């Protein structure tokens, strides 16, 4: 604890030790440390004796290497170096592979191949904004099913995609589902579905023209590919939407806990605030907030004023000590600013538990670094 906050302390070790905790989801705005936190929690739980699987989305290169995530086969691999009786497996999400696997597991090989070759499918599976979120949920559902079936893991820790908004993780699957089940896509692809009669009359001339323009812009081929894709998917599992809803309900499960990660900066805390409100609305269980990259203060007893006055006095005679005093004053000021921001969050959400992780001087790129973060999380 560096800040004097009135919030309850987030007891990470209780959360990890509680066998009822089956899924932990780490959310937050981009770059705040979601991936780092997810990996650190996973390793700590494993060191405590649990059998853990961590699903990371976009780990920094060196961290991925340190966790043995170089094999890109879209399934969890054992991470060596866990102490005690537990185990840690980790994987990095391959969004396209995950989508392909969904297709493959729901249709016969010939049909599956036709979908995989469909150019529209290829565009959707590799670039639709929201596919990554959707596939993260999909993968989580798969890992959970595997855990339930084979008892491989008793805890799954999930990282979330680097969206600009933390809410995207909750909204994107539904958006993709709604979109694919949407009225317009049905109308547009109606001929392929054998229900296109009388459309022109219904929609008037504007539509005909528009469809013509679309065809010009997108190409006839793409539109018929789209039709083929939608009808194939429909028969495959009765709509994307239902599937998205099924995974979503997993997030409301008793064994699921959300951890919101934020840096003590205005943007990140604003996102965290939205997210906390949303979890409450949707009745999803929030474990607490991780304030990451907090300015560490050593020796707060040496105040900014005294440090600066002292630095001025020896400016010329001892530039090194003078500089150190200014550095100290700088850090104190930064910490005070961060503390004000954190206080604002706490007063808006007094019931939310909080734990703090100081900004380490270097990136977190190996198991030692993850253990340091784990210790800080639990402290």
């Amino acid at each position: 604890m560096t800040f004097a906050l009135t919030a309850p302390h987030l007891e990470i070790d209780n959360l990890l030790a509680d066998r009822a905790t089956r899924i932990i989801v780490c959310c937050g705005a981009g770059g705040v440390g979601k991936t780092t936190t997810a990996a650190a929690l996973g390793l700590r739980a494993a060191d405590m004796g649990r059998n853990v699987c961590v699903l990371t989305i976009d780990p920094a290169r060196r961290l991925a290497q340190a966790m043995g995530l170089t094999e890109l086969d879209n399934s969890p691999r054992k991470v060596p170096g866990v102490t005690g009786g537990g185990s840690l497996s980790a994987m990095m999400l391959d969004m396209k592979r995950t989508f392909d696997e969904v297709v493959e597991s729901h249709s016969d090989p010939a049909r599956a191949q036709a979908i995989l070759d469909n150019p529209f499918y290829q565009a959707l599976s590799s670039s639709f904004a929201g596919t990554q979120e959707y596939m993260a949920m999909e993968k989580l559902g798969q890992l959970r099913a595997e855990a339930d079936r084979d008892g491989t893991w008793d805890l799954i820790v999930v990282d979330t995609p680097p969206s600009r908004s933390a809410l995207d993780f909750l909204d994107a699957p539904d958006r993709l589902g709604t979109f694919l089940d949407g009225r317009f896509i049905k109308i547009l692809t109606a001929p392929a579905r054998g229900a296109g009669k009388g459309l022109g009359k219904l929609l008037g001339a504007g539509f005909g023209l528009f469809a013509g323009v679309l065809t010009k812009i997108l190409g006839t081929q793409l539109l018929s590919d789209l039709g083929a894709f939608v009808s194939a998917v429909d028969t495959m599992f009765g709509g994307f939407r239902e599937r998205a809803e099924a995974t979503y309900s997993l997030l409301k499960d008793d064994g699921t806990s959300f951890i919101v990660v934020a840096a003590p900066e205005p943007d990140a805390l604003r996102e965290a605030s939205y997210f906390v409100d949303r979890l409450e609305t949707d009745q999803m269980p929030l474990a607490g907030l991780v304030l990451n990259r907090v300015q560490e203060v050593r020796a707060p007893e040496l105040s900014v004023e005294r440090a600066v006055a002292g630095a001025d006095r020896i400016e010329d005679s001892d530039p090194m000590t003078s500089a150190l005093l200014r550095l100290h004053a700088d850090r104190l000021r930064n910490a005070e600013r961060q503390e004000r921001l954190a206080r604002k969050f706490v007063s808006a959400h007094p019931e939310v538990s909080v734990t703090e992780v100081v900004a380490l001087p270097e990136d977190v790129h190996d198991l030692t670094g993850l253990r340091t973060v784990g210790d800080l999380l639990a402290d």
Partner: protein
Amino acid sequence: MSTTDWPDVQLHVVSGKGGTGKTTVASALALALARDGRRVLVMEVEGRQGLSQVFESPPLPYAERRLVTVSGGGEVWGLAVDPEEALLDYLELFYNLRRAGGVLRRMGAVEFVTTIAPGLRDVLLTGKAVELVRRSDKKHDTPYDAIVLDAPPTGRITRFLNVNTEIAGVAKVGPIRQQADGVMAVLRSARTAVHLVTILEEMPVQETIDGVAELHDSALPVGGIVINMMRPPLLPEGNCEVPDAAQLDAGLAAAGLTATSTVIEALRGEAADHIARVALEATERERLAVLDRPMYELPYLPGGMDLTGLQEMAVMLREQGMA
């Protein structure tokens, strides 16, 4: 300062990893370019009203609005492009279809096109940017001297700028093809520069390096690298060793501070942190230097960003020759 590193550039595209300061830097660059009475437009394309936050103005409509007047008579204008409106513009341009817009919107058709074909959305957005650039060719009555584009992040920038080449695969001839070719010609020319914003940390720097390679492979003009949120090294030049406790104790005494051993150890710890950080930043900067692009540096503003801070950043960019 009258010389700039980019005398021929009319379209400044600003990209970078998410959260490194694209919107802020694009805005500061627009201010910097608005010197000597110039008219500059800064446009955003992600529907987030980032410009109105930075310039502390009311939300921007899909229309050009003056944001600030700069001393010397220059002006910065802002435009928040809405992909749906841009689609209707485009349909009107080619097909006189705007009237049908309401129907299409109600049916979800506009949303459909802008979501399903992110490529098409990018065609519209890049098309709009180039149209604004071309005003100066066409004797438009309100041309701009420069356009600054607050662009999508590094991971998507090459695809975004290159999207018009994909049109060529679909439309072999006709007005759409002509339009696409025209846009590509401007984006690939010396009239455009793609600047990348980064901070001195491993992940953003890696993204910058990858981004430069991708842009380069697609024959898109790489501009400068802006290192944002720099924290100045606070220790005297060349000092990379933690002073020993006795030395520090004497120094503090001279400063009139009687320090306990905890305070001394704390200060030494802070020094060690700082030295490690500076070393790490030096490594990352080396990795950027290898790219051999003009580099600009902007400090971290500890008080947070506001219009005054933005103006200071604009001055720094000008002094460093970016504008």
